[in-house]
């Protein structure tokens, strides 16, 4: 168990910047998720913590040790790989036992610890099988068991769910959450799936192009995105972003007019609002535009309409029905609106 501290971490390959000046303190027992699109540097950051990638600049501390120069084996972390990295020539039992064996844990503890780890991920019936004879979800659980068997400083998980089908992903996600609750080990989890990030994390780090965009709890990131990238990445559907201009607290663009915004801002801005914050207007609405498409989701109905050249999504009641091309009036409360600087994309106001 340990806290992990990243001080000005950078990774460069010749001219290509993988991770740029990353600073973060990860508290003991925290579940931290690195979130971002592919190529954003999240996996590189994790691999630097694991010691699988050299650090170009900066310092990594695990507990009270600087680990920059330590081999992966000396950092006392365990890792779950996206492709699991199971040893194909060993049985499940031997796979889980392997870390104990190479770390010279006393022999008499092996069996008990392997069985305990296997029980935590419900692998007991498969201990004598080889990885080739397991399903994807079972392999994933072997990788988890191998990671938890020796109670390391921290767990690193590199997109552990991305090779599973949708249903299994949900149940394994719950299992990981529960494991973290039971073991209370510092966990760093890399994913590009914002739902995994929202459901698992104590704190989320949103990254893009090697730069940290925002660090915060899932709700902070959802409710107060720091810039248009985070706004457009988090949420399903992502936040609607409409370019326009604001003057005297009134935002206007083609097909949209919202009053009651803070009057401190002036000029061109990007307006953001979430699909679920919009409602059907009684009478005149803030948006009046023809419907582009109607999608029935079951628990709600999703409208798309074109506003100021952008397609925006509006979530309305599940029994709402309309024809494509009809004009709909949509109400958006000013309090649910976010304003971003149009050139830099950063958030305006608190």
């Amino acid at each position: 168990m340990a806290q992990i501290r990243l001080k000005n971490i950078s990774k460069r390959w010749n001219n290509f910047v993988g991770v740029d000046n990353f600073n973060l303190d990860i508290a003991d027992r925290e579940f931290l998720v690195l979130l971002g699109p592919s190529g954003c540097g999240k996996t590189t950051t994790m691999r630097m913590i694991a010691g699988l990638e050299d650090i170009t600049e900066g310092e990594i501390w695990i507990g009270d040790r600087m680990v920059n120069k330590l081999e992966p084996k000396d950092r006392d972390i365990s890792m779950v790989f996206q492709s699991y990295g199971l040893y194909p020539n060993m049985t499940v039992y031997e796979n889980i036992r392997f870390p104990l064996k190479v770390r010279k844990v006393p022999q008499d503890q092996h069996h008990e610890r392997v069985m305990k780890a296997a029980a935590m991920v419900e692998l007991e019936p498969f201990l004598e099988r080889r990885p080739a004879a397991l399903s994807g979800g079972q392999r994933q659980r072997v990788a988890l068991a191998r990671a938890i068997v020796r109670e390391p400083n921290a767990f690193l998980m590199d997109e552990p769910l991305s090779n599973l089908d949708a249903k299994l992903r949900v149940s394994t996600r719950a299992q990981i959450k529960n494991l973290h609750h039971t073991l209370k080990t510092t966990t760093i989890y890399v994913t590009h799936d914002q739902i995994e990030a929202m459901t698992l994390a104590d704190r989320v780090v949103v990254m893009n192009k090697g730069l940290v965009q925002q660090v915060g709890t899932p709700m902070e990131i959802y409710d107060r995105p720091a810039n248009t990238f985070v706004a457009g990445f988090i949420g399903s559907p992502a936040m609607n972003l409409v370019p326009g201009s604001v003057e005297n607290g009134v935002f206007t663009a083609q097909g949209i007019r919202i009053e009651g915004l803070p009057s401190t801002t002036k000029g061109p801005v990007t307006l953001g609002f979430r699909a679920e914050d919009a409602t059907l207007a009684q009478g005149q609405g803030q948006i009046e535009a023809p419907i582009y498409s109607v999608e029935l989701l079951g628990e709600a109905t999703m409208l798309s309409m074109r506003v100021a050249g952008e397609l925006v999504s509006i979530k309305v009641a599940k029994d709402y029905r309309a024809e494509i091309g009809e004009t709909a009036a949509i109400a958006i409360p000013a309090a649910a609106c976010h304003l971003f600087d149009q050139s830099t994309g950063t958030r305006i106001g608190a």
Partner: protein
Amino acid sequence: MSETLAHKRPAGLNVLIYGFIVFWVILAAFPFLWTVWGSFKVEADFFSRESWWNALFGTNTIRQTGAAFTGDGYYGAWVTRDFWRAAGNTIVVTLFVTIISLTFGTLGGYALARSGRNYAFWILIAALIFRAMPHITLVSGYLLPFFQLNIWGVLPTSIIVLVAINQPFTLWMLHSFFLSIPKDLDESAMVDGCTRFQAFRLVIMPVMWPGVVTTGLFSFLLGYNDFAVTAMLLSADNQTMVPKISSFLGSVQEAGNVMYAVAAVVSATVPLFILVLFFQRQIVSGLTAGAVKG
């Protein structure tokens, strides 16, 4: 699958297909079978000028030895002319060539497969160029220095030269086998507590066996079948089987020597059959599958 296909084909085509396969098998196997059969005859039969039926029925063999088959060729080669010593030398040479090539090949191939550096690529290209050279070009260059250093004619010298010739190939082959093993395997081993070398030994090598066996077989065959190097670099006492056979053929002034060569050829081929039969599963899986999936 193939059975249903065979049913669908017209009978004439089937006859043609199977006829061709039978013809092909005979064509490929006949020279060897003929040699095996002939090795138990005397020279007057196997190299008969009257009729080649003599080689089949052994007319002269019966006249000379009293039976239709004789082991005289084998006795002459193995006992009279010390073919056993050549066989022993061959075992020493092939064994050491295989072991040394595989040791350097696995270590080097692994390093090259896991290295992200540019020079790894150029080392492999250089290896390819040396691989493409005719063996004899290397040997002729070696001869003079070997005489001067007084290391000509002994087994270790030939072993070193054969390893040098073989190494580019083993390096290439093992390199591509290592590439087919996912990098995640080494990395998870290292995170689990292995050093780089432990990861190689405990995790990577166990899944590399098909590749090692296949490459080892090719190294073995190179050492076993080599003529250019062993003929020029070994003294008469230290000859391996292939140059020894050639020397049987070369001295025809003595009757029966050709039959020694025939018997020796058969003796030298049999171990290869056994070897391939024994390792065929590994060889096939090594040649087709590459290695294993993670």
